[in-house]
């Protein structure tokens, strides 16, 4: 893929004013993953092939309809990056053999949920990074197996109620640090993003467009159905995830991690947690001060390490 930056995103008015992805998709109202996809797609443009792993977004293209202006290939839960490998290699072969003119080149984008990215698809993702595959990878992370009714996954945060962790203390485990696992492969680019911070997201997409190799995006995807909140709160919850420090926005290039939007004064995690039904047991019937303090301590500990760097 020829590398060029199309626009420069400094202010909100620089953002594309219309969406490339068609309307009427079966995604839930307020889907944080879909919002990230909109921004990514608007900037990348239609010369893309999305290679999909089993997840919520599989339902974007249901025969005979598709919201995409470019390509779409559904693969399986485990092997979307391998599907991307085949498409990228085939297109490269055709370009090299001059069976495809350069203007027909495509950007290959894997689109996968956290169920695949953090678990079943991890081997294929790791393999694609090993092979330095020239592709973009978007994980929309709604912190559970959302498409099957929000069972806990390796992306589920501590204490969250899911449909397989309904006990009074929620999910006992801790969210896996996928960003670091990816970064350990030293790919061209790794970033965390969230649709509620569109400028940060747009700048990152703009940056990765100029690069070759594996470009990995991990988007927290607020999920009204899975996290149990009103869809109109998606953007607010997304912003609070950043402002409380729960979801650090950062990027990895050449061995260096840089935080791209450091909250000056972090809000208490309560503000993020209490808007979501999955954490309501921390506040009702009475406040679980210990549980909340533990979550706060983990967030503080993360940022203490960042500050000391």
């Amino acid at each position, binding site marked *: 893929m020829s590398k060029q930056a199309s626009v420069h995103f400094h202010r909100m008015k620089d953002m594309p004013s219309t969406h490339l992805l068609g309307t009427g998709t079966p995604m839930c109202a307020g889907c944080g993953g879909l919002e990230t996809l909109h921004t990514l797609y608007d900037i990348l443009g239609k010369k893309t092939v999305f290679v999909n792993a089993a997840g919520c977004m599989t*339902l974007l293209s249901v025969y005979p309809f598709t919201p995409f202006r470019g*390509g779409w290939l559904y693969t399986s839960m485990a092997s979307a990056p391998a*599907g991307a*490998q085949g*498409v990228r290699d085939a*297109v490269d072969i*055709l370009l090299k053999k001059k069976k495809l003119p350069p203007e*027909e080149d495509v950007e290959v984008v894997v689109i996968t949920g956290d169920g695949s990215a953090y678990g079943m698809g991890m081997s294929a993702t790791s393999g694609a990074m090993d092979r330095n595959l020239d592709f973009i990878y978007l994980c929309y992370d709604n912190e559970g197996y959302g498409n099957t009714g929000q069972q806990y996954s390796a992306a589920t945060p501590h204490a969250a109620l899911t449909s397989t962790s309904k006990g009074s203390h929620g999910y006992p485990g801790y969210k896996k640090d996928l960003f670091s696992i990816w970064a350990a492969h030293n790919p061209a680019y790794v970033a965390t993003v969230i649709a509620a911070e569109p400028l940060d997201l747009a700048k990152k997409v703009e940056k990765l467009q100029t690069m070759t190799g594996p470009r990995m995006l991990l988007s927290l995807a607020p999920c009204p159905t899975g996290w149990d909140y009103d869809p109109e709160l998606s953007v607010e919850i997304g912003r609070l995830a950043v402002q409380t420090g729960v979801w650090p926005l950062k990027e990895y290039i050449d061995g260096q991690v840089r935080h791209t939007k450091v909250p000056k004064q972090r809000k208490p995690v309560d503000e993020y947690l209490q808007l979501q039904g999955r954490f309501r047991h921390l506040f009702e019937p009475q406040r679980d001060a210990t549980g909340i303090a533990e979550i706060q301590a983990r967030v503080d500990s993360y940022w203490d390490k960042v500050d000391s760097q």
Partner: protein
Amino acid sequence: MSGKLLTGNSAAAWGARLARADYIPAFPITPQTEIIEDLAAWIDRGEMDARMVTLESEHSMITAAGSAASSGVRVFTATSSQGLLYGMEMIYTVAGWRTPFVMVNVSRGLASPITLESDHNDIMAARDSGFLQIHCATCQEIADSVLIAYRLAEHADVRVPAIVNLDGFYLSFTREPVDLPDASKAQAFVGDYDPENLQFRGNSPLSQAMAVLGGGPYSYFRYEAHLALQQALTVYDEVAEEFAGIFGRHYPMLDCYCMDDAEYVFVMIGSFSTKARDAVDGLRAAGWKTGLLRPRLFRPFPQTQIRALLQGRRAIAVIDQNISMGMGGVLHSEFAMALYAATGAPILASYIGGLGGRDISQQEFFAIADELRQAHESGVTPPPRMLYTDTELTEMRKLQAIAQAEHAEIHQP
């Protein structure tokens, strides 16, 4: 015999080279690995203009094979046994994508217990997937079948992937003289890959492998794939005839040996059928009218042709190198289906042998023939048999005695 001494694996690699495969997603597994090593060496030396990528699993390998074929290039890949099963989700999936490419499977028994040697349970697991299946008995046939498989898979009336199957060790590592097709003739025979509507392009949107809602559209696409495989029966004859015209080697979908006047027939697939061929020679020398029927094309299944060939024979022994647990031999049940309610249907007996590379001796073939003759005379079909000798059982008992002694020693108080 003329030709170059090649292992079955090398013959398979030559097939891919002569078909001018553009792309080879790969993953090593015994006894297939030599195929990808040969291809890698040719690509490294600039003797083959292809790209090879080693994936991190067969599941990914088959995904990449399907997605590359969906993007407009000719694809070759190879696997075996556990690898085929590890990739099985994608075997079914990419067949549904209707992407033509060729995969060689080097048959090897399945775990458990884990083993390296050959039988056909691996390839039988792919039976219902939507892949075409061509089964080989010689190294010559392997190279030729890869070329035929591309023509068949890529044919406008077919458009599904194909498996060319060969037996681990017995063919994979056995050198036989192979008369390699002339490169330019092979090129003319196989032709250029026509991706038809399977290609991702920057300026022409395309969705592939989409979800469907409801049984109506789902059934439609599944039926379409089934009908495409059935159309391959007609196409196969055309392609095999054209191949024979150019290269002088005939590959009918049902390979018949001494079948014209045969009263008693062995049915086998793969390289072990050459043992049955020897037995036919021995039995004919003793005055028995025996023959061998070897289905080369297993999917689509040439049901009508089998029925026509076997009607009026006295008795058939289907010798399966696979075992469907709780049922028996897979090939036997398919032959029973082909012969059901046929007028003059012969007695159909089931034998299982050759599991995990176990030999089938000439004496066993003779005993089977004898049993067929008795069945014909009595009119009673013999019960299904699992071939195993007293000597083998004695040897097995010795191993068990050692295992028990070891166990007792470890658990001594």
